[in-house]
């Protein structure tokens, strides 16, 4: 398509980047949402809801952290 550059590489970059954008923004937004809702629920005396929202925030943060670790791994494995 572009001679020196494989079109497949460009489409792969576009696909992976957009997927990363969705994953990063979704997971970190859920961290913020879960944290906020958990705090609200705790103040309102709703212990179970606070726990559920808190757990959701922790899980989302874990997924976000995996994405960060994957990023560092890519940096270190450049050839």
């Amino acid at each position, binding site marked *: 398509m572009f001679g020196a*550059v494989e079109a497949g*590489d460009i489409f*792969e*970059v576009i696909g992976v980047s957009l997927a990363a*954008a969705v994953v*990063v*923004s979704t997971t970190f*937004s859920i961290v913020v949402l879960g944290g906020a809702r958990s705090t609200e629920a705790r103040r309102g005396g709703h212990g179970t809801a606070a726990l559920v929202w808190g757990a959701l925030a922790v899980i989302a943060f874990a997924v976000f952290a995996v994405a960060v670790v994957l*990023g560092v791994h890519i*940096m270190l494995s450049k050839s």
Partner: protein
Amino acid sequence: MDTDVVLWIVVVTALAFDFTNGFHDTANAVATSISTRAMAPRVAVTIAAALNFVGAFLSLAVAATIASGIVDADVITPQIVFAGLIGAIAWNLATWYFGLPSSSSHALIGGVVGAAFAAEGSKAVYGDGLLEKVVIPALVAPVLAMVAAGLAILIIYRIVGRQHPGVVSRGFRLGQIISGSLFSLSHGTNDAQKTMGIMFLALVANGNLQPSDDIPTWVIVSAATAIALGTYVGGWRIIRTMGSRIIKMDPAQGFAAQGIGAAVILSASHVGFPLSTTHVMSGGIMGAGAAKRFSAVRWGVAGNIVVAWVLTLPAAAVVGGATYGVTRLFGTGPAGPLVVSVALLVALLWALARIVTGKTVPVEA
């Protein structure tokens, strides 16, 4: 003896370029964090400098030269490398003065291409390489980052839009510390390598090292130190442009631009498609602004930035070619590079004096 003098001039010039590279690109990592008050300015540049320093040690497996595949390696001489570095430094300083973010890599490629062209003519420059390493990435990077950051900000607003703004801002400010740090680390692993590669090439060309040798520790330490110092000093004019002149951003937009910028660069790195951090970050900021409200982006400022991107390669090439021509007036010895270095230092001191005494027009906020 003469060749040693030229070698050390090239090494010092390469470190000067490395300094301007860090100085010029600080904005990519810290502008959004400073603008949204995720971090105090001095803290932000200190963290960015430290992570650039660390990043320079993490990955040494980068290609020997950034211009590989773009110019004929057989024609490269220390004088061509010197002239290319001067072209890149001149462009970095000019764009810093006008507060315009532009790619240091493209400036370096432009400088070397111009010098090689001046030395050996068009046969020394590979058009396919330019297309592959400069033109296509320059077209893909900002558009992709803009779309990805726009998508991210729409998702973010959809998920947290009904929450208390204070809580949301605090959350995304914390996220920016992580995304900014990732960006700085990535920058250190990428950009310090360019200088190491150039110093290594000069040492090989001078017969001090063999191509199969490891990069000497002093080369790694000096390149890491130069880029970290440049980052710490900070190109505040460009930080101001990226942080507040393109859009007035909230922490969620800052996170989207920075986090998605890092994701785009690392995704591209993963599939071996090199993108400019400056192009990605600028595109991400525009995308995060436009997705909220199209008119939120100052398109005039964005247009100036795009013009700078288009001019980067030809302008650096012209300076690189002209510098090579001037150095050759003095023969192939160290006199030419010495004269150019002294002239550049005098010009820099003059410009610095004008800036310090306030005789220049500041970049408007």
